[in-house]
């Protein structure tokens, strides 16, 4: 279906080879996963498949790519819409119109499809992707998962044979991600569409996948069946890491496989004995105190009567569906949102009343769009600005940045950094003042495993006996790795609050893979299991 023959790609402005002599085949009707580190070229590979690269972006290209017999060098992407379709990383940015129904017909209208045919296809797509109740909704009012499904429907109306998706679940909560992936799997099984997706969160997609394209750091590409690739790949989801660590020969692709393979091991494993940290923390001082907080947007209540105390030394993860009120809670506690009733005290001060230096030396906040904090023309200028904004000795921020992420050229424009690098930069700026309370909103969007590892160690090292970290995240595995305590929000209320191990293992949606495999024992991560084995 998709055939690459000796494909080489060079971007003129980056002056480095993206791919060299790439050849592979993707058969028809399969669910294909493209995996690899950020910057390894996953998105570029997808865009090569439908010709956006190089037709749209430029670049020096040689070799041949054919999709369903069409040479992409000879056809522009717009001429291939009935063969191959692509949905970008953030589908909401690609919406042209205002409402769901208009978005679905946008492509067909400009192609001149007959009105009665359009009508029929729209109804078909609304049914296929379960969008019928949303047909008149404003696109701006859709949740992430709904927007993703609308974006898929808007390209499927052109009847393509291949569907490409760039990180379709990276911004979604686990439940919405599951829905989108199930929909994609149905497209493969019922309609015979070839689906190719690029994804970081392997644990989410692996169970659906027929074939894997592995783009390695050194830009060599391996293509194969999942159990071949995952035998020795550097990237692997937790269950495979666990299975490898126990030198199991088979590669488990689903939690069910792993449970079967590891049932014996699971029963032989001693029950976990976590250090009981709650006593220690009872003595430590409360850093953040929220009492009866209620926030309303017009008639809609975003947060209802929240009370929460965070003590020093804690790493608290706030979890919950999109729209559960996580961001509202975080922005309230850093003092940039007005609220109706209740009180918030950070180290006995109301953050709303603080400004400038006083505020930022108390709380550090990394917003969801981390780059909102960046405005300089180069990394070096940004770091210098940070020193003067924070009123700290010059060089402080750049020293911090070098610790978080060594070896970045300071003349680079901040927007040219990768997502993970940009996050490190913002983190360095925020941490320059050593605020006792660090608040992170969805820090892992678009981060690969390595960037996540760096984030984990950076966060761990900031938490001392005087400080605490609060983060909102959908990333179950990250939370399992990092958090000491988990708070689950639903419809603006706290529905669960407790030690990470208890909360994560008791909820089916938020359980990490290891917990699912080794249930009912409350293991969370591979490292935990291995550490306990070593102790024996």
């Amino acid at each position: 279906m998709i055939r690459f023959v000796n494909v080489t790609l060079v971007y003129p402005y980056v002056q480095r080879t993206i791919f060299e002599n790439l050849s592979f085949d993707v058969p028809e009707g399969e669910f294909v996963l493209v995996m690899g580190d950020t910057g390894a070229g996953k998105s570029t590979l997808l865009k090569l498949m439908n010709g956006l690269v190089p037709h749209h972006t430029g670049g020096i290209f040689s070799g041949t790519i054919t999709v369903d017999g069409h040479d992409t060098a000879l056809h522009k992407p717009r001429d291939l819409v009935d063969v191959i379709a692509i949905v970008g990383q953030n589908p909401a940015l690609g919406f042209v119109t205002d409402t769901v129904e208009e978005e679905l017909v946008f492509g067909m209208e400009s192609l001149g499809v007959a009105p009665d045919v359009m009508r029929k296809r729209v109804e078909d797509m609304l049914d296929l992707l379960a969008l019928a109740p949303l047909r008149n909704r404003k696109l701006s009012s859709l949740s992430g998962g709904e927007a993703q499904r609308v974006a898929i429907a808007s390209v499927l109306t052109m009847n393509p044979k291949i569907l490409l998706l760039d990180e379709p679940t990276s911004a979604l909560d686990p439940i919405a991600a599951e829905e989108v992936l199930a929909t994609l799997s149905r497209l493969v099984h019922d309609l015979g569409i070839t689906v190719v997706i690029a994804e970081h969160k392997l644990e989410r997609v692996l169970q659906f996948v027929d074939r894997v394209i592995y783009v390695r750091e050194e830009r060599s590409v391996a293509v194969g069946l999942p159990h071949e690739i995952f035998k020795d790949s550097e990237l692997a989801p937790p269950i495979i890491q666990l299975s490898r660590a126990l030198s199991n020969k088979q590669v488990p692709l689903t939690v069910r496989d792993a449970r079967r393979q590891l049932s014996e091991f699971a029963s032989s494993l001693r029950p976990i004995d976590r250090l009981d940290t709650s006593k220690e923390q009872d003595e430590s001082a409360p850093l953040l105190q929220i009492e009866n907080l209620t926030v309303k947007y017009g008639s809609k209540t975003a947060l209802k009567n929240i009370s929460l105390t965070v003590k020093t030394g804690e790493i608290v993860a706030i979890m919950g569906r999109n729209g559960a009120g996580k961001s509202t809670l975080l922005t309230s506690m850093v003092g940039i949102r007005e609220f109706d009733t209740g009180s918030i005290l950070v180290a006995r001060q109301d953050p709303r009343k603080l400004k400038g230096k006083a505020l930022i030396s108390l709380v550090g906040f990394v917003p969801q769009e981390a780059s909102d904090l960046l405005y300089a023309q180069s990394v070096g200028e940004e770091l210098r600005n940070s020193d003067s904004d924070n009123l700290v000795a010059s060089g402080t921020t750049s020293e911090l940045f070098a610790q978080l992420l060594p070896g970045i050229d300071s003349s680079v424009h901040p927007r040219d950094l990768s997502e993970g690098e940009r996050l490190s930069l913002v983190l360095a700026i925020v941490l320059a003042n050593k605020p006792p309370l660090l608040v992170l909103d969805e820090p892992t969007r678009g981060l690969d495993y390595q960037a996540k590892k760096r984030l984990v160690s950076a966060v761990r090292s900031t938490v001392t006996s005087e400080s605490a970290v609060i983060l909102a995240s959908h990333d179950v595995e990250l939370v399992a790795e990092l958090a000491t305590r988990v708070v689950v929000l639903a419809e603006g209320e706290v529905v669960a609050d407790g030690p990470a191990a208890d909360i994560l293992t008791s909820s089916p949606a938020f359980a990490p893979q290891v917990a699912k495999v080794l249930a009912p024992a409350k293991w969370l991560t591979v490292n935990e299991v291995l550490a306990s084995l070593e102790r024996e």
Partner: protein
Amino acid sequence: MMRTEAISQFLRSGILSSAILASASFIGLIAFTWPLFIAAENDGAARWLFIALMPVIAVITIIELTAGQMNVKMLAFLGVLSATGAALRAIGAGAVGLEPIWFLIIIGGRALGRKFGFLLGLITMLASALLTGGVGPWLAFQMMCAAWIGWGAGALPRITRLTEVRRVKQFFEIALLATYGALTALLFGLLMDLQLWPWIASPSSTIAYIPGGDVIENVQRFMVFHLATALAWDIPRAIFNGILILFLGRPILNSLSRAMRRGNVVIDRVHAREQMVV
């Protein structure tokens, strides 16, 4: 055979389109300035004719610049930049017309070329009026004026010969744009006031235009009118525009050219070559 080919080539060369824009702009200019030199016989008709004519002229220029002329990137840039401009208008310091909207039209026209600047002016004004309820008889006049400002920013000379030093060149460019921004802000105020003149200055006042009267005297009368009504607003706006461009012009121009490079955006070839030189 040769001849028809030559003709069709001539037609496609853009001269036709420039001629349409030029004559539309000339008509637009008359629509602003007619009170200064209108004959007494047709005074009553002119009032209503021009207010009806201006929207038609604006639509014709939009059609000429868009229909079949736009590639998908230009269209996306046009939509997004005019939305940004209109959003800036909403957050401007408000009351005295300190609107960063001009800033964007000038920078956009500078970075993306004359014709794009023209279009950006038209669409930014229209989109922001449509959404925020600013539609009225004055809208088409504002659109044309914004279009000229955008066009002019693209048409300003590029400093290539003066010096070889990049920093100096860049400084001169920004200084030029800032001056241009301040002057056009004054000009905009003047033209919009001129358009209001026949409506606001009642014929029974001593600062109204005299149909069929002496042009010089009409100009003097208008200047008094302008002094009495809008000049106080125009001067702070001009200063604000200039300062905004002086401080923000460089980073925003850089952002634009970076985005164009990354997105491989080619707006028109002649312009692209100029861009490479700077």
